[in-house]
Every structure is written in C-alpha cells, then in structure tokens.
C-alpha cells in the first residue's frame, strides 16, 4: 500500500513539474530568442542554443564578384565599357573584397584565410607575348551568336591582362548571368543541338543527292573513296542517336553545385566524343589528307549549318580552359601563409589615428583646425555631423556679419545650400579635369551669380545639359535664388559666400573619406606581406583587402574561410547585442523613467490616502461613515471601462493630456487598497486608540506611528500590488498619451513591436527588460504577493 501511495506521489510530482515547465517555457524561450543572432531566430526547427555563446564563430564568407557582374557587356559601347573598367574608385584593381553572410561580427578578432589553408600563388606581372597569343587564340574561336559580342569586347582590355582575366572570369563564372551557369549553358546547348539536328534531318538527304557526290570517271580513287565515305557518312543515322546521347550526357550536368566550371573536363569529353565522330571536315582531313575541292561547298555547308552551333559551345569550354590554364600558369609567386588576423582598434586608438590622419591630410588649415577641435572635445562618434554643423555655422555667422538680420540670414543660408546641392550633382558627372575647372569657376565668379551661371553653361552645358540646366539659364537656380538676394544690401557679399559653402562641401567630402578610411581600417595583427591594409564594414559585412601592387584577380577563384574569435567579455556583449539594439531603437530609457516615476508616486499616494481612509472607516466614528464605506466598496463593482470615456473627457478639460497628472491622479485612490487595509486595521484593538488619546496623541500621529507599523505586512502587500498594477497598466496610458516622451513601458513596448515587426530577437529582448524589474521584485517579495492574493479570497 505504501508503494502505491509513493508511486502516486511520484506521478503527481511529475505532473506538477511538467506543469511548471509549461508555465516557465515562454519565459525561457523569450530569453533564448533574445540572445540569438538575427538569422538564427526564424528557422525551423527552432534551436535552443545560439552561436553567440561560442568563443569561435564560423562565418560564411566568399569573395565578392559583384564589381563587374551587374554590367551587361553586350549592351555597352566601347567607351562606356572602358569607363566601367577603370572609372570606379572603390573597385580599384588591387582591392580584394570578401562578403560575410549573415550578421557580421561587431567585435572580436577575425581570422581570414584565403584558399584552403595551403599556400596560394599569384603573380605581379605576366608575359605579354603569351597574353597576345592567348587573346588571339580566344578570339579565333567560334562562339554561339548570343555570346560572341561579349567575348570579342574583352579584346579591348588586352592592354591590361589582369583586368582581361578578371572580366573573362566574371563573364564566364561570377557574373549575374554567367556563361557557365549550369541551367543557361545546358539550355542553350540543347537548343543549339536541336536546331542542328533539325537542320541535319532536313538537309542530309538533300546533301546525299548533291551532284558533288556523284562519282565521275575522272575521279581518282582517293576522290572516289572520299565521296563514298561522305555518302556513307551522310546516310547513316548514327548522327541522330549520337547527338541525342551527347545531349543527354551534357544535360546530366544541369544539376549540381555552382557553375559548370567544375565539370568542364567531363562535358568536353562528351562533346569531343561526338565531334570526333561527326566533324566531317576534320575527319576527312585526317583520313584523306585534304578535301577534294568538289566537295568543299558541301562540306562547308555541313560544317557551318550543322556542326558550328555545336562546336561553338565546345569552343566556349575550350577558351575557358585556355584562359584558366594561362591564369594558373602565370602564378609564379607564392604566399606561404595566406591567413590574416585583424581586429578593431579601441576608441582611444581610433581617436589618435583620426587625429594623425587629419593632420597629414590636404585639408586647408581652417578645416583642419575645426576637425581637430572636434576630436579634442571627444565627440568622435558623431564626428561628421559635428563637422558639418561647424562649417554650416561658419557660413551662417558670415551672413550675419555682413549685415543681414536673422531671418534674412536663414533665408540666404537655405538658398545657398540649395545651390550647393545642385552643384554637387553636376560635380558628380564631371571628370576630374572638369571638376577642377568648376572649382576654379566657383572661387572666381562666386560674387556674381549671373556671370557664374553663364560660365557654367558655356563650359558644361552641351555635354551635360540636364545637370547644368537646373543651375543655369533664366529659370535656373543661380538666377532664381540670386534674384531673391537682390533686396539685400550686400548682395555680392552674400553671393560670394557660395564659394565658402562650396569649399565646405569639398572639405566635408574629404573629411568623410579620411574618417571612413580611418574608422573602418582594422588593426592588423598578422597578414602576409602582400596585404597593405584591411578595411571592414560591419554594416554590410564587407571586408576590403588592399594588396601591395598585386591585382586582386589572382585570388578571385579562391574559397575563403573566416572565423571570428571572441574573448569572454566580447561573448557577453555578443549575447546581449539585441538588448542594446532594442534599447536604442526606441526611447526605452524615457519609458523606464516614466514607468518608475508613475508607479512610485501612484503607489505612494495610494497607500497614504488609502491608509487615511481605512483608518477613518475602521476607527473613527462620523456621520455617514457606513454610507461612504459602502459607496467606496460599490466602486469595486464598476468596471473601469465604463469610466473610460468620461475620464478621458475630464482629462482633456483639465488639459492633462500627455502629462504625468493624467497617469497618476485618477489612480491615486483604490477602493481595493482601502478595503484591504481596513480589514487589517479592524483587527487592531480599539483600546490602543483610546490609550493614545488619553496620552494626548493626535489621531494623525496615532495612525502613522502605531497603526501603520502594526499593519506593515498588509501595507507592503497593498503597495506591491499597486506598484505592479501601475507598472503593467496599458489601456488608460494608451488613451491619455500619444507622445513618445510620456509613454510608459507597456505602451512603449507595444509601439516598438508594431515598428519592429518581425525582428523577434529585439522584441524578446525588449520584453525581457520590460518585465525584469517586476520579476525581480516578485522573487524577493513573493511572500507578500502570495499572502495578499490569498487574503482576497477569504473575505
């Protein structure tokens, strides 16, 4: 019997614990989700661990090929093509860009290895004659019509073999529609084969009947043999069966990882097999030494209409082979240890470096001083914004100093800024010599906008009509805004400030470049000698590796292995990254402040007023006591929702919308608290009050020095319940506040959730720190909560 009882008990325990697990599961899941990386959140099946907790994190990385891939070469003119290749500063030829997939690490040390960890090879110069041979070979091949233009355009890069190979690899492998894309290649090849077979079906019988095949008496035996051979060749049906099997063989490679490049030997083999059997021209030459002239037309017809479509694709693969062989064979130099280790500079280091970079730059001294002052003041986190502000202030004070009043100055500033904005656009489409021309013009003619407008129109109007048209002419900005200045007494001085504003802009651009270069440059702990510097952009997960006079093309085909290593405090920061992000995404500090303030004050008032009223209802005797008490108790029966509309109207009447008054005053009294405390006061003997009266103590003093301490547990319970209720209040706060600055945590959280949408890790983090104080409070004061709640049941 005892065993049965114990078994029963054990079962009960299991059920109870299962229930407890269900109760706690949402909390645990909330915390787990809040610690995860964004890409780990929305996966199925869900995971309970997170990569964030690891000290070594593998990062999925690959070489970035996007530099050329978005360009469709066949659509460009040669000039444009050359511009694309050379005009982009961010994709300079010695920069190797690596992309990180997923969320890029924001701290820690990064270990980046090019290749598989084995030494890698590269080159600094290639044999130019070999390049010429290569290009000639590539160019001499036959290609399918849709690729012909692309490949022949490449010839224009022959002077720059590194770029040639880069472009070649991109066209064939890495672009957005690479030639070697499995699906595209097989699809196009199938089309070609099908059209070749259709042509063959149509024409081979006709070719058979061609006069050229008629054996005449003058024919030598070799010729006869040739003709017989060709006849039997054309009449066999092997062509069709073989071409089918070739096609299906090639189509096998439609599925697979990456591009066709890894399977080229096999595909070439299949094609070669077919061509060996059916490339009539080559067969005849190898068999008979030469083709009899009488058969030339026929054979050429066969070659061009039936064979060349297929040969074109074979040649594509072959030319790829050629270039890749050349590429691989040119790599003469070796990097023994192609691993780079780099990390972030500390903020202090960054400041020093930024200062150094500014001092070494080509900035004019006024701007240099401004920048250095900002750094000295310690505001490096919003350095650029401060710099822009300072330079703008320069112009504004100048405007005031030449005699304009405040509103005129503001007006003039807006006008000048507007002109500068449009000048920026023009500046962006000019080449570098034109740009310096424009700069000179501005500094020389800034005092007279009409003249400046004329000069700009003359110099650039024909080449860039759109960009100049906004500025110049009678309806252009210079004329329009300039005419607005005609009422100012120092119009020329005002207009001259354009040159100051313009040089501000140039300085800002310069400073931004310096800042970005400094800020995003990483501290290299170890790197091969060919690496001169490394930049890392955590916002988009790009790493730019700057090489020392080595073209990045040599590393384009390599895999990349990246690991991020974190020390203990960095792991901690990683785990709580979502919390930081959520906190910054909405004014949670303000929400916290509001919530704490409102809850504390409300609770305090509730207790004070409640204690007073409870005392009166329990110990004092006055007319109408029972009536008022019943009235108060009756209010507990009224649902708050009934009072919503009128209370809102009252609040509006008092002008208390969006103030603390609206959040506190209506809740400063709670009938429940009064009831709770009164129950407790009732159990205090009346004799105490009488004794106090005899001693001469006032009722007030008696209340606070004797009654309250005696009822401390109940009062604490009441205070706790009130505090929690106020902290968690939602509907009322939603209605009486619409400014973010006055919201409490629940409303702020709800607002944040509607903005954050599905960023669940941040949402869960926000939920966690919203409920954390209350949970901690509860854990410490459990006893009071539970006893208080229990008490409500036993009336």
């Amino acid at each position, binding site marked *: 019997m005892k065993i049965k009882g114990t078994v029963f008990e054990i079962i009960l325990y299991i059920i109870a614990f299962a229930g407890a697990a269900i109760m706690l599961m949402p909390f645990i899941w909330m915390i787990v989700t809040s610690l995860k990386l964004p890409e780990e959140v929305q996966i199925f099946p*869900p995971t309970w661990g997170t990569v964030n907790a690891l000290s070594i994190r593998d990062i999925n990385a690959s070489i970035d090929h996007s530099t050329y891939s978005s360009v469709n070469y066949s659509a460009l003119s040669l000039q444009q093509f050359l511009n694309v290749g050379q005009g982009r500063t961010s994709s300079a030829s010695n920069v190797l860009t690596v992309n990180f997939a997923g969320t890029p690490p924001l701290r820690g040390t990064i270990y980046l290895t090019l290749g598989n960890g084995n030494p890698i090879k590269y080159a600094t110069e290639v044999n130019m004659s070999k390049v010429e041979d290569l290009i000639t070979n590539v160019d001499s091949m036959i290609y399918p019509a849709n690729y012909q233009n692309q490949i022949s355009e490449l010839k224009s890069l022959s002077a720059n073999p590194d770029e040639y190979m880069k472009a070649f690899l991109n066209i064939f492998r890495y672009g957005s529609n690479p030639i070697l894309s499995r699906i595209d290649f097989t699809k196009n090849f199938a089309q070609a084969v099908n059209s070749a077979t259709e042509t063959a079906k149509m024409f081979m019988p006709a070719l058979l009947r061609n006069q050229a095949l008629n054996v005449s008496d003058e024919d030598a035996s070799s010729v006869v043999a040739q003709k017989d051979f060709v006849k039997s060749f054309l009449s066999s049906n092997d062509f069709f069966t073989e071409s089918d099997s070739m096609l299906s063989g090639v189509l096998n490679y439609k599925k697979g990882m990456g591009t066709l490049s890894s399977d080229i030997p096999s595909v070439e083999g299949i094609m070669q097999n077919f061509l060996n059997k059916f490339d009539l021209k080559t067969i005849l030459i190898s068999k008979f030494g030469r083709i009899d002239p009488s058969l030339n037309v026929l054979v050429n017809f066969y070659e061009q209409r039936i064979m060349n479509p297929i040969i074109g694709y074979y040649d594509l693969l072959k030319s790829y082979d050629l270039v890749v062989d050349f590429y691989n064979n040119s790599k003469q130099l070796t990097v023994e240890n192609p691993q780079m280790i780099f990390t972030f500079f500390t903020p202090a280091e960054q400041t020093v470096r930024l200062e150094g970079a500014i001092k070494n730059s080509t900035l004019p001294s006024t701007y240099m001083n401004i920048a250095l002052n900002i750094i000295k003041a310690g505001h490096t986190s919003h350095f650029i914004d401060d710099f822009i502000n300072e330079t703008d202030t320069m112009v504004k004070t100048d405007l005031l100093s030449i005699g304009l009043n405040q509103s005129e100055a503001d007006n003039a500033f807006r006008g000048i800024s507007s002109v500068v904005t449009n000048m920026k656009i023009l500046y962006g489409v000019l080449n570098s010599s034109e740009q310096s021309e424009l700069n000179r013009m501005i500094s020389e003619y800034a005092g007279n906008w009409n003249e400046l407008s004329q000069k700009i129109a003359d110099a650039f109007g024909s080449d860039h009509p759109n960009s100049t048209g906004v500025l110049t002419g009678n309806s252009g900005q210079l004329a329009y805004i300039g005419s607005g200045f005609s009422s100012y007494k120092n119009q020329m001085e005002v207009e001259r400030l354009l040159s100051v504003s313009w040089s501000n802009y140039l300085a800002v651009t310069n400073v931004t470049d310096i800042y970005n270069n400094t800020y995003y440059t990483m501290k290299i702990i170890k790197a091969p000698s060919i690496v001169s510097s490394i930049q890392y952009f955590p916002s988009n997960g790009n790493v730019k590796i700057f090489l020392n006079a080595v073209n990045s093309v040599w590393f384009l085909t390599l895999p990349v292995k990246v690991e991020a290593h974190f020390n203990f405090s960095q792991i901690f920061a990683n785990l709580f990254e979502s919390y930081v992000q959520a906190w910054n995404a909405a004014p949670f500090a303000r929400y916290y402040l509001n919530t704490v303030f409102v809850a504390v004050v409300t609770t305090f008032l509730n207790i004070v007023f409640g204690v007073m009223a409870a005392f009166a209802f329990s110990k004092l005797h006055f007319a109408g006591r029972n009536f008022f008490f019943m009235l108060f108790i009756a209010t507990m029966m009224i649902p708050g929702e009934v009072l919503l509309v009128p209370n809102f109207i*009252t609040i509006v009447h008092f002008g208390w919308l969006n103030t603390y008054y609206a959040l506190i005053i209506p809740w400063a009294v709670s009938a429940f608290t009064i009831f709770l405390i009164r129950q407790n006061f009732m159990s205090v003997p009346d004799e105490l009050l009488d004794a106090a009266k005899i001693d001469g103590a006032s009722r007030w003093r008696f209340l606070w020095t004797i009654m309250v301490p005696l009822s401390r547990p109940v009062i604490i319970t009441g205070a706790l319940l009130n505090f929690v209720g106020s902290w968690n209040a*939602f509907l009322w706060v939603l209605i009486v506040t619409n400014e973010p600055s006055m919201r409490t945590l629940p409303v702020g959280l709800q607002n944040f959730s509607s903005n954050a949408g599905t960023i669940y890790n941040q949402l*869960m983090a926000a939920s966690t720190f919203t409920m954390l104080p209350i949970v901690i409070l509860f854990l410490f004061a459990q006893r009071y909560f539970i006893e208080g709640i229990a008490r409500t049941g036993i009336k």
Partner: protein
Amino acid sequence: MHNKMRLWENISGYLFILPALVIMSVFVFWPVGYSFYLSFFNWDYAHLKNPSFIGLQNYIQLFELNTPPPYSFLKALVYDGFYISISILTLFAIYLLVDIVISKRVKILDAIYIFGITIFSLIFFNATLSAMNILPYLTFIFIAAAVGLVIFKKREFISRMTGHFFTLFLISGAIYLVLRFAFPSNYGIYQWLNAVKESSDFIKSIWNTAYYVILYVPADIILALLVALFLNRLKLFKAFLRTSYFMPFVTSIVAISLVWQWLYNDQYGLINYFLSFIGISPVAWLKSDVWTIPTIAIMSVWKTIGYNAIIFLAGLQSIDKSYYEAADIDGATNSQKLTYITWPLLSPMTFFVLIVSVIGAFKVFTEVYVLYQAVPGPYNNSGLTIVYYIFQTFYTNQQMGLASAAAYILFAIILVFTLIQFRAGQKRVEYL
C-alpha cells in the same frame, strides 16, 4: 463640550477620507453618472461642439443590423423558450423520480402530472417543432408549469431542489444541450445570434466575448483547482512550484502577449514545433479567424492560473484539519475525502473565484490588442471584444455617445454577475 467633541470627531473623519473622496468623486462617481448621461447623446466627430440629445438612439444603433436577420428574434426566443421549458420539466421529472426512489412512495397525482406532461412533450417534440405555430403548445406548457409550481410548492421533491441553484442550472443546461442535439432545429437564440453577429459589430463583440468567457473560465478554474490540490499535497519543492505557477501573473500583459505572439508563429513558433512531435501539422494560430479567441483564451489561462491557484490554495488550507482527521479515522480513501470534504467546503470559494473570473474575463482587451497588433483579429473582426469595441468607437471613431452606451451595456452584463455573486455570498454566510 460633548457636542464640540462630536463635531470634531465628524470633521476629522471627513478630513481623513477627504483626498480619497475627492479623487473618487472626480474619477469614479462623476464619470459613472456622466457616462450614463452621455449615452443618450449624439456626440461624435461631427458634433463635437454641439452634441444633441437622441434618447435611446445610441442603444438602438448598437444592436442595429446591417442585413436583416434570417428570422425574427421573437421566433428564436419562442423556439428556445420551448426547449428551455421542456428541459425544466424534464428536470422536475428527474427530481420526482429521485424522490420516488428514495422515499419509496408515489404521489399519484404528482407523478401523473409531471410524467404525463414530460412524456407528452418529448414524444410530440418533433411534431411541435414542425408545426407552423408552436405558440399554443408553448402557452399550454407555460400555464401547466406555472400551475404545477403553485400546487407543488410545498412538495418534498421541490424542497430537495431549493438552494442548489447552481447544480440545477448545470443539470438543466445539460438536458437543454441533449434536447438540442436530439431534436435539432434551425431556430433558437444561439442560431439567431450566430447568423446575426456578422451584421452588427457590437453583437459580434458580445458573441466573441461570451465565447472567450466560456473557453477561458472553466479551463482556468479547473486547472487552477488541480494546481492548488497539487501544491497543497506535495511537500518538496513547494516554493519553486509555487513561484513558477504564479510568475506569469505579475508580468506585463504586453510583454507576455509579445512572447506568445512569437510562440504562436505559424512557421517558426515553438507551439507548432511541439505539435509536430505528436504529428499535428502547423496551425496558423494568428492568421485564422477560427483560432482568434482560443489563442487569447489559452494565453489568459496560462497567465492567471497561478493567481487562482493561490486563492484556492488559501481556501484549501483554511479547511479545518479536523475534518480530515475524522475522515481518516473512519477510513476514508483519498477520493472520498476529496468528494465529500474538500469539494463541498471549497465550493463557496470556487463560486467566488468563478464569478470574479467571469467578470474579469468580460473585460478582455489588452491581450487582443497586443497579440494581433492593434487589429481586432486577423480579419472579420474575429477578435473584437466588448471593451475593444468601446475602445474603437471612442478612441478611433470618436463617437463618445455610442461608446458610453456600449460601456453601459457591459456594465449591465457585469452587474448581473456581480449581483449573482453578492447573493451567493450572502447565502454562503448562511452556510457557515
């Protein structure tokens, strides 16, 4: 002297309650009346400056149907009245049977009367329903029942029934459901409301709220009772268990709703993940209007189970141990102790918790608002509750008068339950 003291006593009393009184007056007493007053006015966006008195128009507008109902409410009432009266008669018949069995005496007249009417009604149920006009039958039944009650008021089997209103309610409710399933009909209050709820937002909100209450309250009470029984019985880890069951209650409903929103996610949510272990394919919890109310109910049960369990626990612990000891001496088993001691002595508290839960459940709003991101349900207003309706009407549409009217209807509903609790509370005092 004495009068002066009395005066001072009075004044000091008033002074002590003054702050509370002032605030209560401004923010409770005044609004209650003003809300009632407002509900008779046409005060909305168009009439902000000059609200006009429109009498009961707001109330009528609440229940106004956009499309006409399939049949009139009266017909539904009549048909349902028929079912209800038959179930009450059947109830009488059952009690009479019980009385006969127990007292082993048969009062012929009573037997003929009750059994006759009951059997007659049941046999001719179908015929009655299909008849074009059931009013004569209904009238007959009502009169018969009334006469019967008057005559039989003093009879024993009636006395067996008095005082157990809750049990009577449950039994007749069960009989009603059995009748409904045995003799189905397209007409009735439930069917009428079901058809009509799509034509009026307010009726839909009442429907949704009632559905929520029916789902939430029994589940919460039963589970909380079980938890309380566990907690009362198990000695080890009491503190841990108590904390884990109670913790959801103190947390903010907004934060909890967000967490549950993530749990309910149909692709990546934990709930669907666990369901997949037992072979149930993913449920689109938050995107299907069928699941709107159940999702809220499940979350609410999770949140408040601890709170109610603690109350029950207090009640369990207040039962005098001597009862149990006496039972032990008599050799009672655990289940016997549960049925004959625990349950009866706990039932007043159970009733109290029940009513309080019902009242609280009627006020559901924040859960819907946060779980569905400021929309009452994925579509079709499937999550529109009464308070949500009030909120929408007042805050979004700025129709103050209409909102006040709706609030007062809510008040009336809650008041009914409050009064039930009040009367039951008084009866409880009579027990103990």
